[in-house]
């Protein structure tokens, strides 16, 4: 399915905190085609500084009642000039949005369980993923870590979808104190022998690497969503490469915008 380049109206900008916001974008062509784990490239404004589009995961896919999806949202964390602009946007504005792009997550089917592991804004691909998995009856669990309790968002939404939550904060203000991989490891240890679990991970690279290692150690599959600087998002520039082992075990640079951003955690040649 070819991506679309649309002028999307901003239907709403919900500021979750001083740094996080959720933009709801009117973009039926993208919303209808998007699969969980895919991303869009957003031009944050006019002019040439910032110059490039910025990649964002498709967060929620919003349907119009029972009809086809007509809008989708992105969860943004303010870290620089591009996300600053997105944070300040008002409803009614317009954005160039190109997508959906990249390879989505592979969806498991029951009885396999899906355990999602999110670090910070790495939560972004999991609203859509949880929606799709729950719709096909997959048992879902979300391991979600952040700096502090105030940076944990959308907990009620995941809970309402029937996703079990395991929280962790670095300052211990909510859930386990420390990294989210700690409760994950405990859960992996404690799971009934033979229960098929696939780990889905999105967050800082060290977390992805740790999740892939845990998956390996506990005989689970893992799908990790990588994050590289992406200049084009379309396969045109070769900026976004991730080192991935091919079937012969040789590590090669592959474009994460085309062959990812989701990769088999076991195939990534972590450095």
């Amino acid at each position, binding site marked *: 399915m070819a991506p679309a380049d649309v002028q999307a109206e901003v239907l709403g900008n919900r500021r979750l905190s001083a740094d996080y916001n959720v933009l709801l974008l009117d973009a039926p062509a993208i919303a209808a085609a998007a699969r969980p784990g895919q991303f869009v490239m957003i031009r944050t404004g006019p002019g040439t500084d910032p110059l490039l589009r910025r990649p964002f995961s498709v967060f929620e896919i919003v349907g119009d009642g029972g009809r086809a999806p007509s809008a989708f949202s992105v969860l943004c964390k303010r870290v620089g000039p591009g996300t600053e602009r997105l944070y300040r946007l008002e409803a009614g504005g317009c954005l160039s949005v190109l997508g959906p792009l990249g390879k989505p997550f592979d969806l498991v089917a029951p009885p396999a369980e899906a355990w999602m592991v999110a670090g910070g804004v790495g939560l972004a691909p999991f609203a859509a993923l949880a929606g799709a998995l729950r719709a096909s009856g997959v048992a879902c669990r979300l391991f979600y870590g952040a700096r502090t309790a105030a940076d944990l968002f959308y907990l009620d939404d995941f809970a309402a979808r029937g996703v079990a939550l395991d929280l962790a904060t670095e300052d211990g203000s909510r859930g386990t104190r420390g990294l989210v991989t700690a409760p994950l490891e405990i859960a992996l240890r404690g799971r009934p022998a033979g229960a098929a679990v696939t780990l889905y991970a999105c967050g800082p690279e060290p977390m992805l690497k740790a999740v892939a290692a845990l998956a390996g150690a506990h005989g689970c599959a893992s799908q990790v969503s990588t994050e590289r600087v992406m200049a084009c998002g379309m396969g045109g520039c*070769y900026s976004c*490469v991730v080192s991935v082992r091919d079937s012969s075990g040789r590590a090669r640079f592959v474009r994460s915008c085309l062959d990812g951003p989701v990769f088999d955690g076991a195939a990534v040649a972590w450095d």
Partner: protein
Amino acid sequence: MADLTVRIGSLVLKNPLMSASGCFGYGLEYAGIVDLSSLGAVVVKGLFLEEREGHPPPRVVETPSGLLNAIGLQGIGARRFVREKLPELRRLNAVVVVNVCGTTIDEYAEVSRILSDAEGVAALELNISCPNVREGGIQFGSDLASAGAVVAAVRKVTPLPIFPKLTPNVTSVAAFARAAEENGADAVSLVNTFLAMVVDVERRRPVLSNGMGGLSGPAIRPIAVRMVYECAQQVRIPVIGMGGIASARDALEFLIAGASAVQVGTANFVDPLIWTALAAGIEDYMIRHGIARLADLVGTLERGR
């Protein structure tokens, strides 16, 4: 309707718009959203004889109105290109120009021979200006004799139009354009990227894994326009201009300064559907100014106020 055709050596292009090498993959990546046959030509990623891995990431960093890259010419090599990409490009009626790389003069010639023997390559752009590989590239492009030698060697092995791509990192680009002309080039293309560096001050290291990289994008446009003007003044072969083109107005700057055709690189990342707007904008301008043929616009810059 204005006549946008462009002649480069024996090649006639339907319009002056080309993708810049390395900014459009092998073309096929964009086939889902761009009619490749609507471009004057599709210039594909630089190819050596063999496959290349390129540099580890980070390979790019954004700069004010610019993009710094050190991809390191990751690519599938000439033979795999002919086998795996060319048939589909032909099927889509793309006019294919291949950006030819080499670490030795022999390699340039060998890659050129392979591509000339294949069905469906329209022209060869000789990349003697990549700042991101130690061997080859800019090493040939910053020395007049070597630049001429590469062109002469390729000229011997191919009947295809050839255009060396010049580096801006020299005192006189025009001298290299003249050397290219004298050695049988059908055109010259310029500019490749400017050798540059961004420092990560917290880590006190270059941001790019390769250290330095090449600067492209709107930031460099005024320098590129100047260089295209200088070259066009000094050679009779066509000049293919590029560097920061992001709108029809920008493309017109190059055409008026003396470029017979233009390439778009970095701006394609921002706006992959840019081609239609560029063609329409140029045509609209020509109609507005009563210019029937593109050739009548090329190089019409008046000096002085």
